[in-house]
């Protein structure tokens, strides 16, 4: 394995799976994943309608915690997503799905989101990771998961017919986080008035939970009448105003800068090199937010091929470990529970800004020790396989001589496997 192949597998992928064939040209391998359709085939693809039906039933029957239909859906669907990550032949594409899922965080810390979290990925994120950012943004903002998570489903224009009749009113949560976290970011210098206006624009973007096939529904009766101004731009009334405002925000220069910075931080280094950020920013600007073009540009950045700059998050770490040991599908451990123990419960970020993306955020003493603890338990699955060979297959030239030596000297295959999985180079990507 050459150095560039080794780096492609960890920087842009999820680590090599067992002795999977090595790509003859690592750059072409990555670019092909952008061009070709997503190979993910879930047995029972999750949909928002299915999740909302479960939520509706739970609200009617009020089952004890842990026995709800929502929880059951979450369990099977999250396991399916993780199994897909372990086995996918297009790991770069999967990493892009993870990146954008985290960018548009919907957290199951709000229990009502559990039934629609996987549907959110399949319906709003996955179809768009190599397409237009603006289309992804619109799909996200209309998705029941986001409308529930950030409370827009119940936001009502105070001067709308519904507001006048019921005395309900605005909830500015989604509007604020959309501007701050999803699009322009505070770089754009917006005001409280902009946030309030945008919240008015989004009134009526709601969910119909009673329909035969429940899902997004625009409720004109709840929409704040009139045109509204956000960032000095006037938007028309009704649903078209929200669509126009999102298109405006998606293609705002501050959005391009913000997305470029996050992408470079994720795929290059904790402190994004300014030149790399400018390159990606220019691609987003020139292509009007083509995420496929931006992803390809990331692959072509020289800076993205410097090894060792990024610490794996628990999710990246656990999936890479399972891939390295090439566990057969029926022996893949319950990763959802493990991730909670490692401090990154699946789709369970504490706040709408999602999981952090710097080593300092994941290298607390207790956090690193837990990886060691988990790895030493998981290493028990090594059986009688040759750990030196697995280490070479997995890391190639990234494997340091001292790690190889420690593996050789370990008193048992299990200890040797623990040392591989806890070595500094395996914890990087």
């Amino acid at each position, binding site marked *: 394995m050459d150095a560039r192949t080794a780096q492609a597998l960890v920087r842009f992928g999820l680590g090599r799976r067992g002795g999977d064939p090595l790509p003859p040209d690592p750059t072409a391998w990555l670019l092909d994943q952008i061009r070709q359709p997503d190979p993910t085939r879930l047995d029972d693809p999750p949909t928002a309608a299915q999740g909302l039906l479960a939520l509706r039933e739970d609200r009617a029957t009020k089952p004890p915690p842990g026995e709800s239909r929502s929880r059951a859906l979450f369990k099977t669907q999250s396991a399916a997503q993780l199994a897909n990550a372990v086995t996918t032949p297009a790991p770069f594409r999967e990493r892009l799905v993870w990146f954008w899922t985290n960018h548009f965080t919907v957290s199951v810390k709000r229990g009502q989101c559990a039934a629609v979290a996987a549907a959110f990925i399949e319906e709003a994120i996955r179809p768009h990771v190599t397409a237009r950012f603006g289309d992804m943004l619109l799909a996200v903002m209309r998705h029941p998961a986001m409308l529930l998570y950030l409370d827009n489903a119940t936001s009502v224009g105070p001067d709308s017919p519904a507001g006048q009749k019921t005395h309900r009113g605005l909830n500015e949560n989604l509007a604020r986080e959309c501007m701050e976290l999803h699009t322009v970011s*505070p770089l754009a210098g917006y005001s409280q008035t902009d946030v309030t206006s945008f919240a008015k624009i989004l009134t009526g973007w709601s969910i119909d939970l009673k329909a035969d096939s429940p899902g997004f529904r625009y409720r004109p009766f709840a929409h704040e009448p009139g045109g509204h101004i956000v960032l000095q731009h006037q938007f028309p009334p009704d649903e078209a105003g929200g669509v126009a405002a999102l298109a405006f925000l998606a293609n705002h220069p501050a959005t391009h800068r913000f997305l470029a910075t996050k992408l470079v931080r994720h795929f290059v280094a904790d402190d994004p090199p300014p030149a790399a950020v400018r390159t990606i920013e220019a691609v987003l600007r020139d292509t009007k937010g083509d995420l496929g073009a931006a992803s390809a540009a990331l692959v072509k950045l020289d800076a993205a091929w410097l090894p060792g700059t990024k610490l794996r998050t628990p999710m990246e770490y656990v999936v890479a470990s399972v891939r390295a040991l090439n566990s057969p599908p029926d022996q893949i451990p319950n990763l959802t529970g493990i991730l909670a123990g490692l401090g990154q419960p699946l789709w369970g970020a504490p706040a709408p800004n999602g999981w952090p993306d710097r080593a*300092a955020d994941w290298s607390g*003493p207790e956090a690193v020790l837990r990886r060691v603890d*988990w790895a030493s338990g998981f290493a028990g699955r090594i059986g009688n396989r040759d750990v030196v060979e697995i280490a070479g297959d997995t890391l190639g030239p990234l494997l340091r001589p001292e790690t190889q030596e420690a593996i050789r000297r*370990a008193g048992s295959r299990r200890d040797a496997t623990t040392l591989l999985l806890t070595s500094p180079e395996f914890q990087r990507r």
Partner: protein
Amino acid sequence: MYLQTTAITRRTALLGLAATTTVGGTKFALAAAPTEKRLVVIILRGALDGMAAVVPYGDPALANLRGEILPPAPGQPNGLHDLGGFYGLHPALSGLHGMYQSNELLIIHAAAANYRVRSHFEAQDYLESGADHRMTSGWLNRTVAALPRPTTKRPEGEALALGVSVPLLLRGPAEVANWAPHGFSQPAPELYAAVAALNRHDPVTGPAIEEGLRARGFSASVMAADERPKDKYAFPALARSAGEMLHAPDGPRIAALEIGGWDTHTAQANRLNGPLKQLDDGLVALKAALGPAWTKTAVLVMTEFGRTARVNGTKGTDHGTGTVALVVGGAVAGGRVKATWPGLGTGQLFENRDLAPTTDLRSVAKGILAGHLGLGAPALNQIFPGSDSVGGMSGLIRA
């Protein structure tokens, strides 16, 4: 001076870590520490509605702003705990009410940090940095660095972060231990030692593994494993663990904890009960675990900003400004609410929206650091850059 042997010394020696600490050997000497005072900071992430936790029920404008989410008045079933005719503590805060009655709870109302952003994430960064911009270190870490250097180092360092990660508040140059209850079975000490050796020269994982092993060795020496509460990840259990470690003669003196669940944009009256109860139970557990050391303890409970004075359209509140800070502990001159109440009437709200801030949170923190830890103005102005014009509030700590 006396000699002491604990589990940690065996463990550090076995792991070969002793050479990298100043403990040096299987026995260590503990001299008189520079401070026997304990300081705990609890961050409420997500913006606590101060007017829900400490309700200004005597303000005539309150009912009009948020009548639909107000708890019953004092004296009624499940009503507020009265604090003297104007303020009332949320019904879920019965433990804190007891501390108020025994003069161990001081409430600072209409407080806010010195920035006016309504972004959780910027505001939390600034709150923890102790500045109006994000720094790479937190003010509590700089406090540790400003304390007189101990003649003999504590095995754990002076400060401890409870939870899986170290908050920005405690990141920085001063060495900080980190502890959380662990859920995975643990390998033999020999394997830990081999993993530590393999990572020794790594700038990220090396120090983390060393610190983690030290903290675990220490916690095992002061806590009985079979007494762990059932939900060991919940805040009250974490607070109790903090108390046990701070209580130990050779334990840390400064600790940071955090608890979320405060971002109540919808159905606030219902959604606040859980987090408030957790906070209340946690402070009660902390006090119990500290035992006699409670009299030497001050706890600062703070949040990044308050919430809108008016209830929003979905029976919740949106991001606001002024809120409460709580100062709790046996060392605190409590039993009162300290506030310049700005009023909630027409023209009195900040930007016609939020509780107007009348107290700078930095003056509260500075007042605690001065009164409790004896830090002077030069040190305090370094800990909170750009705060020279903000004096520390006096009278927070019992003389």
